[in-house]
């Protein structure tokens, strides 16, 4: 490129206020873009990673969530004898039968939310490799003890180790906090399923979750169980099961986000156009001089385009800088499939930051193209005559 970069950089600096205002505008658009990606991404990550491709979940056929599913004891027992189930070190099948209900709890800010209360067995935690005990200890079977997910401890009132929680008319001691790595289980309360069943007056389970000995055996297992008329169950890959739950809301969030960002980008591009047209307008004589000196029209076009992109990149960097603090902030929304509160963290990845910068650059190109072309097209003698 023949026209030196210093020309563009210094001119951007010479019109500091204008440059800053336009860059900030573009930066904000970039920020909203990254913000939306981080929101949808965090939400999906929480739900997607909740399930594992090595696990299968068995629910009543026709149900889309555990909440509306019913798996009677006999059916659960039969499912747990299937050959495709992996074995624990002690030789027992790596499978668990669970119960799921919703309970209304108070948030720290005073409002209430529905929270998933899950009755689990001893194998439940083993089946979910991402879940481990963060604090305290696991509840003892047969006792009125529960453990809570770490995001519940963070957001709900009286949800720490040592507190008591009222479920189904009884007081339960919170003896531990689980870390489920940002998945849906971070927003759940776990207790002994055999104790929950009479207490919640639910004589049936909601689901059976099992670890496949070989992921490829899933198809055979699914076919056998689903075609058995006595059972009327549906067998799903655990990761796909949870992913499907998040799909609708995640899509909506992304859709809304992209719509907003795109339209906003339009507004910012209009702003960039104004700025660049003004820049070109005030430097008409310079452009004429450069053309007279023999610089090609192409190099003029390129120079102003680069200036516009530089301007936009400054905005992009500002947007990224503003987006970084968003990373890790916890928020929550309703998981429509399970009708319960799911808390998740905003997740800002390097890929998103890069996307934000590229997006800004694109805005710079679009906003700079027409003014640059106008600059390059000036008639030399007219340009030189301008004051």
């Amino acid at each position, binding site marked *: 490129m023949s026209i030196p970069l210093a020309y563009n950089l210094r001119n951007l600096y010479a019109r500091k*206020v*204008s440059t800053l*205002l*336009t860059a*900030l*505008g573009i930066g*904000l*658009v970039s*920020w*909203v873009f990254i*913000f*939306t990606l981080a*929101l949808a991404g965090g939400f999906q990550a929480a739900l997607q990673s909740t399930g594992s491709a090595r696990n299968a979940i068995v629910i*009543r*056929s*026709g*149900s*889309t*969530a555990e*909440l*509306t599913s019913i798996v009677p004891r006999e059916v659960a027992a039969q499912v747990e004898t299937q050959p495709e189930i992996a074995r624990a070190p002690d030789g027992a099948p790596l499978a668990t039968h669970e119960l799921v*209900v*919703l*309970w*209304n709890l108070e948030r720290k800010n005073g*409002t*209430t*939310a*529905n929270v998933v209360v899950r009755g689990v067995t001893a194998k439940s935690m083993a089946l979910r490799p991402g879940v481990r005990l963060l604090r305290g200890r696991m509840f003892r079977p047969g006792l009125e003890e529960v453990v809570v997910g770490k995001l519940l401890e963070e957001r709900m009132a009286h949800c720490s180790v040592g507190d008591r929680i009222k479920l*189904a008319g009884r007081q339960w001691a919170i003896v531990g906090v689980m870390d489920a790595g940002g998945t849906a289980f971070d927003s759940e309360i776990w207790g002994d399923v055999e104790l929950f069943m009479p207490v919640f*007056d639910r004589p049936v389970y909601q689901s059976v979750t099992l670890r496949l000995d070989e992921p490829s055996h899933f198809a055979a297992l699914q076919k056998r169980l689903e075609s058995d008329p006595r059972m009327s169950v549906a067998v799903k890959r655990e990761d796909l099961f949870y992913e499907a739950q998040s799909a*609708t809301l995640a*899509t*909506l969030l992304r859709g*809304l986000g992209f719509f*907003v960002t795109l*339209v*906003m980008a*339009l*507004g*910012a591009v*209009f*702003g960039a*156009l*104004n*700025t660049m*047209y*003004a820049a070109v*307008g005030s430097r008409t004589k310079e452009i004429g001089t450069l053309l007279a000196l023999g610089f090609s029209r192409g190099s003029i076009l390129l120079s102003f385009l680069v200036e516009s992109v530089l301007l936009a990149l400054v905005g992009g960097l500002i947007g990224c800088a503003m987006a970084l603090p968003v990373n890790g902030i916890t*928020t*929550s*929304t*309703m998981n429509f499939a399970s*009708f319960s*509160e799911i808390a998740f963290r905003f997740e800002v990845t390097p890929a998103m930051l890069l996307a934000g910068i590229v997006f800004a650059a694109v805005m710079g190109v679009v906003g700079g193209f027409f003014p640059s072309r106008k600059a390059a097209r000036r008639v030399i003698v007219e340009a030189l005559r301008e004051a």
Partner: protein
Amino acid sequence: MKYLRLVLANLLRSKRRTFLTVFSIAVALFLFCTLRTVITSFEAAMRASNATRLVVRHAASLVFPLPLAYRERLAQVPGVTGITYGNWFGGYYQDPKNQFAQFAMDVSTFDALFPECVVSEPEKEAFRAERTACIIGRSLARKYGWKIGDEIPIIGTIFPGEWRFTVRGIYTGATKDVDENTLFFHWDYLDQSLPAGRRSLVGLYWLRIASPDLAPAVSRRVDAIFENSAQPTKTETEKAFQAGFISMLGNVRLLLTIIGSAIVFAILLVTINTMMMAARERTAEIAILKSLGFGDGRILFLVGAEAVLLSLAGGLLGSGLAALVFHESDFTGGGFFPNFRVLPETVVLGLGLALVMGIVSGIVPAIQAARLRVADAIRKVA
């Protein structure tokens, strides 16, 4: 008013800049109105709620049902003038994506408690007479092209299997806020199709009270009756019930507000920049106007008026476009917003915001222009 021509002439001097600025403000306000409509349509149900209706549900969770036997005791509570009951059905039509509300309602009391669902008498009779009949909202009928006499198959998720209902009536909402996307059918039909152990269970009771201020007292009374039973109740006004749902959406409102503010602020920056750039180019002309006798105050007004006019034009364009696009549209965002329309107050708010943007962006150039000393400026011109 006579200065309007002068202001307009100035704005049209650089048509391109004027149009770009107006469009960018229009864009911002369009987005603002759309986002705000997302929030207001969540709250539409709250606005449509009847202040003389209470909702009774299981105290612990919506998931647990109440016994049908509660009906007599509830009807006798002092202050209660009417009662109906129903269950959320939660099915879909053909594809899980096609979700809309279905309720199994007690047909003998339903219309008395829900007068805002307006149905003609013959249709009401036909609905009552047939066990597998249903009435659907007008929007729903329009969306799927259903007419009276059509048979609608619904796949149940809570109550599995395929259920078939015949359309015998189409209801319209008494006000614009009433949701017209629900399907109502016979509670008896649902109950009798269930296995023996799962019958006579009601999802929600609705109570009518004589006047809104009786709500707190009646609610307390009802809950006190069932407090220590196996199925305790929670009674609240319909508005509070809806609000509970909305609060479950957590921070969505906050997030949307943040994004909305970012948008407005970004465009404000852009507009301020434009006004300042325009002002820089006009020093000479302002000087000439002043030398002709235009006072500082008039100049302030002229420059300010330009900014305000631009912004209002953009605001009108953006807000108006939003109102138009979603007017009578079938947009429901995948079933999330049954009633997505831009409220008049949103439009007014948008215009007000545009006005503020105009004033804020025009203030600095206007003051600079007012303060300009003719002698300095004329020197530059010569």
